[in-house]
C-alpha cells in the first residue's frame, strides 16, 4: 500500500518546534478523545517536548461533541502561553468561534493541525483570523507549480481545488510514475513497486518522496489565517517523515 496524503501525527509533528520558536513554552493541548485526536497528540507531544516546551494540561471531549464551554473555562483558568489542538470539519469551526466568544482569542494564541482551518474558514468567520496551523499544503501557496495547477483545475471543473484534491492528483502522479517504469505492464510488480518507492513527485504542494513505510516525506507549511485565507508564513518542517512507529513492510 502506498499513501500520497499524510499520516495523522505528521502535521502536529511539525507544529511543536514552530510554537516554541514563536516563544510559547507552556501549552494546553485539546482534542476529541478518539483515534485521530490521539495520533495528532502523539505528534504534538514528540515535537513540542523535544523543542523544550511543556504541555501543562491535555483536555479532551468525546467525539464528535462540540460543547466546549467547560474546557474553555478551564483554559482561561490555566492561562497557558498558547493552545494547540486537533479538530476538523464542523467541530473545528465551532471550536474557533467558541474560543473567540470566550474572549480567549487575542489573549492566548491558538495553534492546530491544519485541518482546523481547512474548508471551514468561511463558516468560522472572524473567529478564524490569526489562527496558526501546520499542513502539507495551503490553497494560497505561492509557487508557480501550485498556481498553474489551481488555474487548470478551476478551468476544468469550475471549482476551487483544496488539499484533498491535491492528494488525489498526487495519487495519479504516483501511479503514472509506476506505469511508465513498467511501460504499462502492471504484472511486472517488482519494477512497478521499486519505481513507486523511488518516485519524486512534483506536486502542487511541493516536491516529495516516499518514506520506507510508504508515506510521503514532505514539507509542512506554517500557515496563518489572514482575511479568510491560510496564508503561508513559513516552512514549519522541511522534508518531514512520519516515524512510522510499528509499521513493518511485508
Amino acid at each position, binding site marked *: 500500500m502506498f499513501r500520497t496524503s499524510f499520516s495523522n501525527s505528521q502535521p502536529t509533528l511539525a507544529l511543536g518546534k514552530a510554537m516554541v520558536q514563536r516563544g510559547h513554552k507552556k501549552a494546553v493541548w485539546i482534542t476529541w*478523545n478518539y483515534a485521530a485526536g490521539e495520533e495528532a497528540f502523539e505528534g504534538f507531544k514528540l515535537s513540542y517536548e523535544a523543542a523544550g516546551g511543556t504541555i501543562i494540561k*491535555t*483536555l*479532551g*471531549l*468525546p467525539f*464528535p*461533541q*462540540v*460543547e466546549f*464551554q*467547560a*474546557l*474553555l*473555562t*478551564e483554559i*482561561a*483558568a490555566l*492561562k497557558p502561553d498558547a493552545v494547540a489542538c486537533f479538530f476538523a*470539519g*464542523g467541530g473545528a*469551526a*465551532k471550536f474557533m*468561534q*467558541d474560543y473567540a*466568544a*470566550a*474572549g*480567549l482569542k487575542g*489573549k*492566548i494564541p491558538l495553534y492546530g493541525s491544519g485541518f482546523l482551518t481547512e*474548508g*471551514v474558514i*468561511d*463558516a*468560522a*468567520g472572524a473567529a478564524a483570523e490569526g489562527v496558526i496551523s501546520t499542513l502539507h499544503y495551503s490553497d494560497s501557496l505561492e509557487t508557480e507549480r501550485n498556481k498553474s495547477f489551481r488555474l487548470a483545475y478551476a478551468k476544468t471543473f469550475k471549482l476551487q481545488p483544496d488539499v484533498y484534491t491535491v492528494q488525489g492528483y498526487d495519487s495519479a502522479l504516483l501511479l503514472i510514475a509506476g506505469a511508465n517504469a513498467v511501460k504499462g505492464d502492471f504484472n511486472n510488480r517488482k519494477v512497478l513497486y521499486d519505481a513507486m518507492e523511488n518516485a519524486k513527485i512534483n506536486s502542487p504542494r511541493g516536491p516529495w518522496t516516499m518514506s520506507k513505510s510508504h508515506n510521503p516525506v514532505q514539507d509542512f507549511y506554517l500557515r496563518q489565517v489572514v482575511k479568510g485565507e491560510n496564508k503561508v508564513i513559513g516552512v514549519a518542517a522541511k522534508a518531514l517523515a512520519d516515524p512510522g512507529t510499528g509499521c513493518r513492510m511485508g
Partner: protein
Amino acid sequence: MGLADFLIQILNSVQYGLLLFMLAAGLTLIFGIMGVVNLAHGSFYMLGAYLAYGITAKLSSFGLALAAGAVIAFAFGWLLEKGLFRFFYTRDHLDQVLLTFGLIYLFEELRSIVWGNDVHGVPIPDWLSGSMALTDTLSYPHYRLFVAGVCLLLALALWALIHRTRLGMHIRAGAFNRTMAQALGVDIERLYAIVFAMGVALAAIAGMVSAPLSSVYPNMGSQVLIMCFVVVVIGGIGSIRGAFIAAILVGTVDTFGKVLLPGVASMLVYVLMALVLLWRPQGLFKD
C-alpha cells in the same frame, strides 16, 4: 478550582442544561403523550439550524428568522403528523423506529439537495454579539445568556400551557387515557397534531438558537439525539418537569466531568442514567 472558576462552571452547566431541556422537551412530549418513539427528533433540530441559516441570509434579521422558522417548523410538523405519523400510533414501537430511522436519512438527503454538504456559520445578531468579562482571560458571550433566556422562557411557557390552559388539560387527559378523553368530546386527532407540531417546533427553535453557537453542518441532528434520549429517560418519559431537572443534571455532570475527571467524562452521563434507572426505573418524575 477556585471559587470564581467553580461559579463559572456552574453557569456553563445551567446554560448547557437549558439547551438540552429545549431539545428534549419536544421528544418527551411526543413520546409521552402520543407514545411515538421519534428517532427523527434530531433531524428537526438540524432543520431548525438550516432554516436559521437559510432565512437569516435572506431576511438579515435574526428575530424575524426565528419567528418565521418557528412557524415553518410548526406547519411542517403538522403536515408530517397528518400525512405520516397518525397512521403509526397503533403500530408496534419497532415500526415507529423503522419509520423515523428512515426519516433521518430522508431529511439528511433533502438537506444535502437544498443546502449542500458544507459547514456554514450563522452570524450572531449585532445587538447580542458582545460579551462580558468574567475574569482577566475569560469573558462570557451575551449570546449564550440570550440562549439560556430563550430556553427558560419556553420552559415557563410550556409549563403554563400544560398546567394552566384548557388545551393543556386536554393534552394531559389524552396522555392519561386516549379513549376516555375522546369519549368525553376531546378532539384527539387535532390535539395530537398540535402536540406533534409543537414538539417539532421546539426542536427546530433549539436548532435555530444554537445555530450561531454551533454553526450548521451535516449530521448535526444525530449528535444531539442520544443526549436527548438520556435526558428523557432520566427525567421520566413524558414528564416536562422531569426533562427540565434531568437536563440541568446532565448539563452539570457533563460540564464538571470534562474538567475534573477527563478520563471517564464520556461515560459519566450514562453512569448517571444507569444509577437513576437502578433507583427509579420509571425515571425521576414519572407518575
